[in-house]
Structure formats: structure tokens, C-alpha cells
């Protein structure tokens, strides 16, 4: 019996093993390699051997206007993208939940479709949509005499990126929220209706509280993902105009692979990691307290 149990648990580990190996080699190992690197000056393109410089890379980052500007751009993106994405996902999920089951499949698929498009394709498409001279959006807007500099105006560019992000990622959040909604037993709503609760009250006193764990999961994942934003800005604006949409990941990427400063780029990656971790911890705290 004991043997059997051992075998059983062993087989579990065996199943995880392939993934764990890859995870270890391609994620955990580079992670700590990067941490080590961040204390070195290592310029790939030079013949100069790596040299230990302590915290120099970190202090350079924290005093660099480019780093701070990229961090600020990232924050702006997160602050706009997360509430809007999750909010619209919630609205759509609640709405889809009310239509008959058969039609639900179509709607769900329709909203989920953009999620399956790769970012390079989606980015290219939206770059065309946003084109101020020949783009789709301005073609329609020109009918009412408008011409919007979607991605060429310093103030507007990031908002346009956010808009595209909502379209692109909202479906993913929506599907999870919808699944959460469908787990809420119907009789709660029936009971509330009998008690005379209107739709608004039913939403705020039944749906929202019962959806909280799912909602918080979606928010946390969204924030983590948003801090790592790169594909959209890279494809649509390349960080422009005037670096207004150059987010942290892009700056790290450029530092590492255009300027070949591996140590400095690693240090910035770890700073980004710290920021994400702090936010995640805060959220998990909230999650735990409410439960």
C-alpha cells in the first residue's frame, strides 16, 4: 500500500518533471544569472572583460532620466490599462451572462478572438488603424471633419496604446470573469428578487462580493502583465513620439541588445521585478484580508 502511494506521488513528480526542467533552465537559472550580472559591468560589444562594480548599475538607473522616464511611462500605462481592461471585461462578462446560452458561445468567442492574435499582427494592424493620414479611424472621423493624431501626439500616444490593449487583452479577462459569474448560484438572485432587490442592488450586493476572488486574480495578473508591456508599444510606436511611450521593458531591451550593456540592463530588470513584486504583495494582502 505504502509503495503504491509512493509510486503515485512519484508519478506526479514525473509528470511535472519535463516542465520543471525547462522552467529551471530557462527561467530560474537566467533569473539568478541576471541578478549576478546586475552587479557587473559587462559590455558585450567590447573586448573588455566583465568587472564587478557593486551597486553602481542600480545607482546609475535610479539617477538616469531615461530610466525614470521609462518607469513613469510604464506607470501611466498600468494606471490607465488595468482599470479600463478589467472594468470593460466585467461589463461585457455580466452582459454576456444575461443572454441565452446558445448565443453566449458566439459572443464569448467574438470577444476572445483578439486574444488569440499574436501581438505582432495585432500591433501592425492597429498601427495602420491609427495612421493619421491613411488610417481606418481617421478615415471615418474625417467624415465629421476630425483628424486625430492617435500615435503621433505626445499626450495622446499612450492613451491610444491603452485603447488597443483593451481590445487585445479584454477577452482573456472576460472569459475568466464569465466563468466566475457562472459559478454564482442562481437561487441567490432569485431570493434577492423575491426580496425586491433591483438589478443594481443584485449586482452590487451579490455579484460583486461573490466575484471578488476571481476579480482580484484577474486584477493581479493584469497588473503584472501591464508592468511588462512591450509588444504593443514596440509594434505601434517604437516608444515614440519623443519617448513618451518608451516603457521600461523596451528600455531594458534596447540597453541590452542595442547598446549591449548587459549588466546595466540586468539591474534595471531587477528593479522592474521589485516594483512588480511590491504591487503583487500589496494585492495579495488585500485578497487575504477580505477573505
Amino acid at each position, binding site marked *: 500500500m505504502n509503495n503504491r502511494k509512493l509510486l503515485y506521488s512519484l508519478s506526479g513528480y514525473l509528470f511535472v518533471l519535463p516542465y520543471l526542467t525547462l522552467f529551471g533552465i530557462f527561467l530560474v537559472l537566467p533569473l539568478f544569472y541576471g541578478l549576478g550580472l546586475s552587479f557587473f559591468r559587462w559590455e558585450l*560589444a567590447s573586448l573588455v572583460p566583465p568587472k564587478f562594480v557593486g551597486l553602481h548599475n542600480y545607482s546609475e538607473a535610479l539617477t538616469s532620466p531615461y530610466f525614470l522616464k521609462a518607469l513613469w511611462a510604464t506607470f501611466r500605462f498600468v494606471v490607465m490599462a488595468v482599470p479600463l481592461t478589467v472594468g470593460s471585461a466585467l461589463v461585457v462578462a455580466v452582459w454576456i451572462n444575461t443572454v441565452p446560452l446558445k448565443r453566449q458561445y458566439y459572443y464569448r468567442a467574438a470577444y476572445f478572438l483578439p486574444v488569440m492574435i499574436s501581438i505582432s499582427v495585432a500591433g501592425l494592424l492597429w498601427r495602420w488603424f491609427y495612421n493619421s493620414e491613411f488610417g481606418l479611424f481617421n478615415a471615418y472621423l474625417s467624415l465629421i471633419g476630425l483628424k486625430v493624431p492617435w500615435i503621433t501626439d505626445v499626450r495622446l500616444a499612450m492613451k491610444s496604446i491603452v485603447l488597443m490593449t483593451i481590445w487585445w487583452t479584454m477577452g482573456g479577462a472576460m472569459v475568466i470573469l464569465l466563468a466566475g459569474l457562472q459559478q454564482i448560484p442562481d437561487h441567490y438572485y432569485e431570493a434577492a428578487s423575491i426580496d425586491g432587490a433591483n438589478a443594481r442592488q443584485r449586482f452590487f450586493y451579490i455579484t460583486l462580493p461573490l466575484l471578488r476572488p476571481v476579480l482580484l486574480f484577474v486584477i493581479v495578473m493584469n497588473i503584472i502583465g501591464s508592468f511588462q508591456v512591450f509588444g504593443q508599444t514596440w509594434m505601434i510606436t517604437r516608444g515614440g513620439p519623443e519617448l513618451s511611450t518608451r516603457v521600461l521593458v523596451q528600455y531594458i531591451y534596447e540597453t541590452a541588445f542595442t547598446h549591449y550593456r548587459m549588466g546595466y540592463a540586468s539591474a534595471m530588470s531587477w528593479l522592474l521585478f521589485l516594483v512588480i513584486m511590491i504591487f503583487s504583495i500589496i494585492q495579495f494582502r488585500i485578497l487575504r484580508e477580505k477573505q
Partner: protein
Amino acid sequence: MMKVRWKCGYLCVIFAALFIVVSGCGAGDSQKVKLRYWNGFTGPDGRTMRRLVNQFNRENPDIFVLMQRMDWSTYYNKLFVAGIGKRAPEVFIIQVYMLERFMRANFIRSIDDLLAKQTEITAEDFPPYLWSRVEKNGKHYGIPLDIHMWGMYYNKKLFREAGIVDEHGEPVPPKNRKEFLDAVRKLTRDLNGDGKPDEWGFVFTWFESNIYTFMLQWGGKFFTPDYSRCIMNCKENVEALQFCVDLIRKYKVAPPPENFDAWLGFRQGKIGLVFDGIYMLQDLRRQEDLDFGGAPLPKLGKYPAAWGSSHIMCLKAGLKGKRLQSAWRFIRFLSEHSLDWAEGGQIPARKKFRETERFRKMTVQWEFAKQIPYIKLLPRTPFISEFLTEFDLAVEKALRGSATPKEALDIATEKVNKVIARYRAMYKEALGGTGE
């Protein structure tokens, strides 16, 4: 149970098929030398290059060249990482301005021993300013395949409509500042009377090469001769950039740079003339309703000048024996077929091919190639990407009007000087000496 067995059956068939395919490939190619060849020709030029590679493979049954193309911006990352991991391709292309970095990193094999054993390719065949760029410490590190430079494309139909024609009714491209300003003013037209132009005389397509060209024409410098200091905020550069800004704000002959695909505007026949690279030629040719011509850039400043670059064919460091000979044969093949390559919108680097009747018939290339005596390559420094990043940002700020040309260039200069200081300190510490 039946189902499971069936699935196994499928799997067996698939594996068997794979085995046959894999072993089949192996058997046939065992005596062939396989060469990997990387480049960044992802545009229409890639099709031309593919044809050349196929031709080489047909004509040389003992060699198989496998070409891989990547977007230039990601290309160098891959090449660098491959080079560090000792897995670089045998043959690869490097744009001349990136060469310094790769030469410094010892990724490229010098070719002087190979050059000595043949007579076709000679130093005299290349413009001196280009040949000197593949040289470092007396050794040569590659063969220039082409020279691609900026020139002027103009819309013949719009020129005729604006009356910029000679006595035969043929459009006349401008040759100096006066003619240029005159032409672009005439070409900027408000067609529907809303007070805003619908057709523009000029547009800035790719800021970097555009403004660089303007600055060169004004006689601007970017570094002190020993590269110890960046001087891109010199008087000439500020004036040149101011002229560019004036084209937008004062003369109002170019649209404000709110537009990403200014190039498309020219393709669609809404812009009178643009400056762009010879490599855009195929793109224009595909636009069937566009009647365009090519000409050397007008002399807008004090000197004739045009941004130019070159694709350098390089060999992997440490290559020897049969692989080396095969790779070298491939490079020579490409060089000998410079004219086929030129068809797709390039200028052969070798004078020998530029003087042929066949090249004369490539009208646009022929016009652009007139600028060869005075084209200017980007500065030769290992920190070229840092320089370009700052340069681009400064130019963008100025053209968009969020800083004056002087302010923008001052900031950029200061930033680049910091980079230089860092480089110098690093090299000085590691290698001793002056840090050069």
C-alpha cells in the same frame, strides 16, 4: 482499446516518415559543404538575394548555402549572441556603420590572405572612403557588396501640373536651394479650398538619414577627428536643422511630422518630392499608377552631400579549410553578380560594374550613383547606436517643435559625451593607453 492501437499506428507512420525524410536529407548532402548565410534583407531586396542564392546553389553542387533573413534591428542582436556563442554563420552581411563594433569584438575573419590569391577584386575598384572603412590595423574585414545612398524621388505628374518643366514639357528636378524652394512651394497645393494643403511639396520620411544629409550639406561635423568629443551641436548643424524646421513651420511646404508613413503619401501621389534611399525603388515600382523619377539630391547647403551606407559581406572569425574556400567562393559570386543585386534598387560598390552599359540602363540607380564622389557614411565609432539614439531624439524634438534645434542638439551632445566618457574610462582601465 482499438482506438489506442490506431493512434499508435498513426504515430508509427509519422515517425517512419520523419525518419525517411531526415535520413534521406543526410545521405544526399553528406559531401556538400553547408554554409549559413545571414542578412537583414527582409524587404523586396530579400527576393533578389534569394534568387542569387538559388542560382549559386544550382551552379555549385558541392556547396549548399542556407540563407536566413531577419529584420535589421533584431538581426544584430542575433548575430552578436551567435558570435559570442561561437555559432555565428559562415557568411553574414553587416551595414558599414555597424562594422566597427563587430571588428572590435573579433567576430570577423580578415580576408587579406584571400584577396592576395585572386585578381578580380581590387582595392581600387571601391571608393576610398568605403574601402578604408573595412580596414582596421592594416587588415581588411569584408567586401562591400553595394553602396546605397539617398537621392531624390519626384512625382512627374505633379511636377507637370505645377509647371516645373523644361521646353519639352519634361519635369525638371531642382538642383539647388532656390530651385528646391521654388519647386516645393509650387507643389504645395490646397485643392479643396479649406485653407489646408492637400498636396505637399516635400515631406520628411526617415528623419535620421534626412536630417543627417541636410547637416552634411551645411558642412556640419558630429565628432572631433579623434572621436574624443561629440560636437553635433555645432553651428552648421543647428542651422541645417533650423532650415528643416522652417520647411515645416515657416515655408509651410512640408506637413508637420505627425505622420508615421510619410513615405506612403509619396506613393499615393500626394507629395511632390521626397528624399529617400535607393533601396525604396522596388517599393515605388510596385505602385503602377505612380509616374516618378530619380535624381541626385539638390544642393541645399554649402556642399553637395548625401547619406550613404554599404552592405559588407563578412566571414566568420576562425573559418578555415574547405568551409573557408566555399564561403569565399560564395562572396566572390555575390560580388560578381553586383549588377543583378543592383536591379532591385542598389548601386554596385565596384566601379567596374558601375561603368557597364547594363548599369547605365538602370535609370534611377544611374542618377543616384552620380552622388558617389560625395556620399558620406555615418561616423566610425563603436558607440554608433548610442549616438544615433540621441541624434534621432534631438531631431524629433526639433521637428515637432517641442525644443529649438539648438536646445535639442545641446542636450543630445551632452548625453553622447557622457557615453564617450564611459567608453574611454572602460577601455583605458581594461587595455591601458589613451582609451582609443
